[in-house]
């Protein structure tokens, strides 16, 4: 890894902590971003010559803050003097000397809240999901507008506007700068976890040619998840979230064939699954299970783990999956969870039991193509071909995009072919958004 590449990675990994702290100083997102940008420019000049600082984030916060204060003073033309504590010390001229001093003042708990606050402002309830994701990727992850636009398959101008709108909304909103109490912290953590999961899903639900372009969103979500877990080490739901993302992303190399078509879970070459990610996911679940709190992420991760542990599709512990969905259903009742559970029930107790389970869902899921897809598959297995075809047609009629229709058609073709339901319908991914409390 070259010097410049190293610096680039160091700047990216220091970014959430540095911008989070600068946001606390300036109480303004644009000001914090500008200060960070300036600090990065100085790092690029300074680090290759003087070597990397011991604590890059502390260096960037220090330099960014001073640069912004100097700039303010310059603009004001020294009309008014800043408060004493804002004056940069003579040591600031050599940030490397000052670094040791500053490092002593760094308070781990404070940074934890800084980063959480930064993530939290991206989850403002007034922001639609797509804006939350775009804002987090821009502000927290530091992706360029171009990179984000590419991932969302929109023009750069459109993405720029989307981010600007999101920022304007944030600027009008009341950003909580006080150190949060335990209940506020828990609330923020839940909102942030949901936002990270949205980022992941945005990447994961892509199909075909989009998939490779969107993979960086999944990787970014994993990075943010790990960041959050390092800050909140004893939160089983954050362990569960990280495990869920790792276990799902581990299948990425097997989810599409050479033509970019979707390969269903049962047909995937499990040798292509990323064992390293799976093992990390399993280790996190093991850790989380020591706590006696089973939240939706942990339960979904445990379901993904049972798939990951099965060497062959026929080794899958469907009874275990059924039980986990039953727990999920009890804790967070949702027709989509019941629909997912029905797929496991079909494997364990047969299609008749599964069909009986999903029939009452019809009024709730009448606009949802996966409902009809699963229903059609179950009817097919029961030999009720005419009814099955109606359900399949209803499913295709409800596909939202061509890619989704193709996905469903593939899925349906497969179901017609061997009359057995398969698990990897997006019903296992997208609907889980609704499972997660927001």
């Amino acid at each position, binding site marked *: 890894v070259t010097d410049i590449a190293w610096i680039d990675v*160091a700047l990216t990994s220091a970014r959430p902590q540095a911008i989070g702290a600068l946001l606390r100083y300036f109480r303004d997102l644009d000001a914090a971003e500008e200060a960070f940008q300036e600090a990065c420019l100085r790092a690029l000049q300074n680090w290759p010559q003087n070597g990397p600082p011991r604590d890059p984030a502390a260096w960037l916060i220090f330099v960014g803050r001073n640069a912004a204060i100097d700039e303010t003073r310059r603009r004001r033309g020294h009309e008014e003097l800043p408060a004493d504590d804002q004056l940069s010390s003579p040591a600031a001229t050599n940030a490397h000397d000052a670094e040791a001093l500053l490092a002593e003042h760094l308070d781990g708990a404070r940074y934890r809240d800084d980063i959480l606050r930064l993530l939290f402002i991206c989850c403002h309830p007034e922001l639609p999901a797509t804006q939350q994701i775009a804002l987090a990727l821009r502000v927290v992850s530091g992706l360029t507008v171009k990179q984000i636009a590419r991932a969302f398959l929109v023009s750069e101008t459109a993405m720029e506007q989307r981010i600007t709108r999101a920022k304007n909304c944030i600027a009008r909103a009341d950003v909580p700068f006080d150190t949060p109490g335990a209940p506020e912290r828990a609330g923020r953590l839940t909102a942030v976890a949901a936002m990270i999961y949205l980022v992941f899903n945005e990447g994961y639900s892509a199909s075909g040619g989009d998939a490779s372009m969107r993979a960086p969103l999944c990787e970014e979500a994993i990075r943010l998840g790990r*960041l959050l877990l390092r800050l909140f*080490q004893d939160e089983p739901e954050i362990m569960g979230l*990280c495990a869920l993302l790792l276990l799902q992303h581990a299948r990425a190399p097997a989810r599409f064939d050479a033509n970019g078509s979707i390969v269903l879970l049962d047909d995937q070459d499990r040798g292509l699954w990323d064992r390293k990610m799976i093992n990390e996911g399993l*280790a996190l679940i*093991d*850790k989380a299970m020591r706590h006696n709190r089973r939240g939706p992420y942990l339960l979904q991760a445990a379901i993904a783990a049972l798939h990951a542990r099965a060497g062959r599709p026929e080794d899958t512990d469907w009874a275990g999956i059924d039980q986990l969905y039953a727990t999920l259903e009890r804790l967070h009742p949702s027709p989509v969870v019941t629909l997912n559970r029905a797929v496991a029930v079909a494997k364990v107790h047969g299609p008749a039991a599964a069909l009986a389970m999903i029939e009452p869902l019809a009024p709730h899921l009448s606009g949802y193509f996966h409902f009809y897809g699963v229903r059609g598959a179950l009817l097919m297995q029961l030999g009720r071909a005419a009814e099955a075809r109606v359900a399949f047609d209803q499913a295709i009629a409800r596909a939202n995009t061509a890619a989704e229709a193709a996905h469903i058609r593939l899925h349906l073709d497969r179901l017609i072919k061997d009359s057995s339901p398969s698990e990897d319908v997006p019903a296992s991914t997208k609907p889980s958004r609704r499972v997660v409390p927001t």
Partner: protein
Amino acid sequence: MLYAILCYDSEDIVGAWTKEQDDAAIAKLGVVTQKLAAQGRLGPVARLMPTTAATTLRKGREVIVTDGPFAETKEQLLGFFIVECSTLEQALETARDLGRASSSMGSYEIRPLTLFQPGSTAT
């Protein structure tokens, strides 16, 4: 004399490497370790999972188990065991056994491995 060479770096940075960067880093190290292996000088090589996968057990009359890595700076790394365990529970139970047999206070950080090459030295 056997020497342990312990690796320290920012897991933020190493964890952000792409698969290609990671593979390239491992391949470069492989050139060195293969040479050592040919000379009969290479013992076990291990790579640990991120600290997010760590659990720490504090020895003492009442054992305390916490999530996360060992974080005290007043104690120093004195040694390690590599143990095969089917679950974290078993690993913790093993650490408890070791703790009961141990004459000192201190902690065990329990961290799964992501890579292990047993190696063999001539001595």
